[in-house]
């Protein structure tokens, strides 16, 4: 993995993490907003500008790819590189969680 990717995705923002996590299942932009609201019990409500910008950036970096299109709504899915990045981030969050509980 190149250093530019490392620099922009580690540690990941909450927004990026939840978007990437949502795309384990193919989803379009608004479906991601909806899914993240459910996951966080409406604590996080992502704005459309933020979703569009993050999707464009992740697509350019190869973390996600469009799989199909329905009524102008592009449906995205996580790529192998995206999964790899997500796993590294999950491990970091797990460490954080374990340490916060007072030791591994």
């Amino acid at each position, binding site marked *: 993995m190149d250093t530019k990717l490392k620099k922009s995705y580690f540690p990941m*923002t*909450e*927004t*990026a993490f939840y978007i990437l996590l949502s795309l384990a299942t193919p989803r*379009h*932009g*608004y479906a991601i*907003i909806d899914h993240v609201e459910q996951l966080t019990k409406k604590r*996080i*409500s*992502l*704005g*459309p*500008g*933020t*979703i*569009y*910008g*993050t999707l464009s950036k992740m697509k350019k970096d190869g973390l996600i790819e469009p799989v199909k299109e329905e*009524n*102008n*709504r*592009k449906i995205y899915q996580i790529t192998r590189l995206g999964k790899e990045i997500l796993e590294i981030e999950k491990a970091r969050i797990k460490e954080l969680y374990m340490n916060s509980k007072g030791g591994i």
Partner: protein
Amino acid sequence: MEKKVFKFITVDQLEKEQEFLHDMDLKGWHFKCYKNLRYHFEQSPPANYVYRIDYKETLEDLDEYLAIFEDAGWEAVYSYPIFQGSWIYFRKLSTNESRDLEIFTDKDSMVDLLKKVRMHWTWFGTAMSLLLLFFTILNLFVSRSLVSGVPTALCFFVIAILYVKLFINLTKKIKQLEQN
């Protein structure tokens, strides 16, 4: 009935512009378009619409972009093409719950917008300033009287100051966001 309002708001003051459009809505004037430096409004009963403005750099995936906003409850009111992209004005009816009234909900995407605006407008401002500076100097060589060069020189100073101010303001806002 239609009303046209002249108001000078520079691109580093998007919040001010959004607030202005919202205030007009509360008074029953709904934003239609922006032409010849004037905001055009149409009269109808007052409504509590909030306005949000985005700059989209490329227009090739405009349909996909608009679909996400539309699904999230934002209506695209007007677009103002400039450079290769376009300003896009969105509105959404504000309810008592007052949730989801932002189109950017994290620091990174807000910083991205400000950086995009800073880049395009700084390029444009620099090009304009250099051009005016060139004509001012050319005038010094060609014309025998100094007075004839005054209008160009004045334009140069106004444009240069305006765009330097814009650059400084946007940089300040970006730094503030990045530090939080």
